[in-house]
């Protein structure tokens, strides 16, 4: 039951996942060539958010609902990584 001219929802999700992946790979530029440590942490944080979105889109595109659990855990670990690195790169950092 493809509504409009053979375009189905999993196809849209897969194409969108590919485009999000291109944007995530472009973020590697700042992660590699960031002048400061905080630039790299920020780039990896944004990259992790993009990865979460890609995983959620892949769970629609490949029809695997278990990928949403992976995305949930990835979001948790991503937040924890950003907080931990930004706390431990500063001496006695009271960040947050």
């Amino acid at each position: 039951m493809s509504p409009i001219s053979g375009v189905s929802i999993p196809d849209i999700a897969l194409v969108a996942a590919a485009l999000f992946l291109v944007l995530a790979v472009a973020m590697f530029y700042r992660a590699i060539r960031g002048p400061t440590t905080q630039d790299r942490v920020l780039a990896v944080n944004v990259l992790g958010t993009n990865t979460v979105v890609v995983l959620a889109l892949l769970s629609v595109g490949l029809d695997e609902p278990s990928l949403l659990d992976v995305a949930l855990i990835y979001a948790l670990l991503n937040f924890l990584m950003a907080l931990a690195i930004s706390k431990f790169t500063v001496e006695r950092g009271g960040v947050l």
Partner: protein
Amino acid sequence: MIEGIRLAGIVAFIAFGLFFTFVSTLGVIRLPDVFSRAHTASQADTLGAGFALAGVALALGWGATTFKTVLLLVFIFITNPTAAHAIARAADEKGIEPWTVDDEQTDVDLYRASNASVVADGGSSDESDDASEGGEQE
């Protein structure tokens, strides 16, 4: 009819998410400073991920998986600006000076300033911007 509206909604949500994520990526790559990069990463990227996850939630229909997606959306809406704030505050406590229009600090200058253990003489080159033209000649 309903199916067509749902498909249009999914396409619109994912397209908005792609647009805002593209803006965020462009900002993180092109902006001159860690603070401005943290600003664009906290706002545009949160909105992009929120739109894309809303499209995913609309595509999944009713069920436990949609609940997980909405949970993910709320979690990202809370934690992504918090993480960007923590990173920006860590950069501030590290002693990185914000980029302004007056002093022409480039990426190279910020890199040199970040490598120095104590940023003590950061302001000496800045205040000589206006006076150096006439001051050195005399």
